[in-house]
């Protein structure tokens, strides 16, 4: 492989590796020594080629490609710096209806309040607010913010509606979570059953002296059990284990999403859905990356166009007079 081809291949590789940080952010690999080493190697080879090509060692086309290498090196350097010294990925879990400060970005993240229906739809978005700036809605697509990208990941959640046997609505609390008075379970814990791990959470109904452990079963997990739920279809479900204040078990049941179940003197309706967490990951400097890519592409095109002139054919020189 000639030095020119090697440099171009490595330039494309470096650009691809850097752009990947924006397209598929928050991967640990971007902070690994292998990723850093690949970009560093590409930078060294590209710089070596550009240095020799600028003095004419690879002809006039090489001189143009040296400019393209400058663009690719800029992209690779910003990708390398992001991977090398960029902050680790941060995941912000917010209770519905609350505001969480995000010091890394200098913003406050507003997690929307939800009811059972909106949780089931799973279409909640997080809004970032900064003093003096317009609010910014963040969804599952990466959104550049300074030297970071922000996006949301949808995770399993459940809205718990509890009533006593007379139909009176009951307060739901979460004694083990910071969101003490939220009826929305975010499954911050996990429980292993045999070789599988299930999202888990805990809630209480103090008026009835009941404590419930709730496990989230995906549709596939639920289908693996012969649960005999009518109307469950291929939906996710929840396994509920109820105890009293003294820790005595008072019942165990499986609830399909949105279907009421009665257990341990409680009428429970568990609506399963998705709720976003906010993920913030380091990202390459967007202006440098965009400028570098534009420079690389234009210089490559320029070198190809000039290289097609008849004067250059067979001489290896492209700095001849233009065709008239």
């Amino acid at each position: 492989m000639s030095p020119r081809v090697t440099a171009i291949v490595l330039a494309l590789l470096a650009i691809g590796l850097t752009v990947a940080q924006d397209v598929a952010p928050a991967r640990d690999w971007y902070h690994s020594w292998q990723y850093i080493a690949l970009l560093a190697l590409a930078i060294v080879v590209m710089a070596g080629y550009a240095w020799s090509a600028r003095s004419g060692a690879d002809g006039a086309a090489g001189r143009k490609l040296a400019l393209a290498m400058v663009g690719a090196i800029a992209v690779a350097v910003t990708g390398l710096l992001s991977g090398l010294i960029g902050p680790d990925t941060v995941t912000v879990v917010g209770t519905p209806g609350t505001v969480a400060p995000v010091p890394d970005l200098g913003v406050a993240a507003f997690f929307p309040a939800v009811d059972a229906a909106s949780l089931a739809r799973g279409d909640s978005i997080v809004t970032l607010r900064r003093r003096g700036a317009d609010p910014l809605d963040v969804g599952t697509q990466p959104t550049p913010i300074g030297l970071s990208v922000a996006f949301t990941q949808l995770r399993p959640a459940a809205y718990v509606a509890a009533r006593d046997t007379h139909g009176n609505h009951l307060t739901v609390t979460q004694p083990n979570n910071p969101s003490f008075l939220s009826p929305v379970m975010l499954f911050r814990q996990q429980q292993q059953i045999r070789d599988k791990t299930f999202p888990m959470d805990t809630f209480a109904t103090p008026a009835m002296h009941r404590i419930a452990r709730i496990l989230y079963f995906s549709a596939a997990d639920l289908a693996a059990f012969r649960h005999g739920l009518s109307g469950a279809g291929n939906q996710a479900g929840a396994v509920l284990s109820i105890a009293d204040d003294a820790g005595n078990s008072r019942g165990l049941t499986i609830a399909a999403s949105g279907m009421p179940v009665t257990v341990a003197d409680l009428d429970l309706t568990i609506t399963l859905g998705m709720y976003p967490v906010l993920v913030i990951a380091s990202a390459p400097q967007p202006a440098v990356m965009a400028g570098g890519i534009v420079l690389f592409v234009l210089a490559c095109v320029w070198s190809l166009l000039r290289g097609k002139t008849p004067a250059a054919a067979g001489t290896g020189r492209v700095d001849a007079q233009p065709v008239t």
Partner: protein
Amino acid sequence: MLAGAPAVSFDVPRVGGGSDSLAAHRGSIVLMNFWATWCPPCKEEMPALEQLYREYRGRGLVILGIDQGESAATAGAFAREHGVTFPILVDEDQNYASSYVSVGLPTSVIVGRDGHVVRGIDGAQTLDQFRAAVGPLLAAK
């Protein structure tokens, strides 16, 4: 609780009929009290809140007792039994308490005339503590 932050508001049913919200009282000093009928400290605190309401409503204090997660029938029966005359709101979705990151019941949140949170108070308060919290705000024009 975010003192100084804009106070969020939700429209919820009011015991006795209709609906109400924090936002409907913008321009007044509002004391929101998150409570529930099963909560013993909430029950102990109610007489102090009622007395505070009787003393200060003429000076513009609004008290909203916001029941968390219970039915209007449950909250209404409790209010009648304990002679509560200030507005009782029923927040079945518990949006108020979760949004203000209430770590227990009762929790009180004082909101200024500008609609921003002045302070949050965890746990039951005495009448004197409530007076000390809202008195200076009512005096300031």
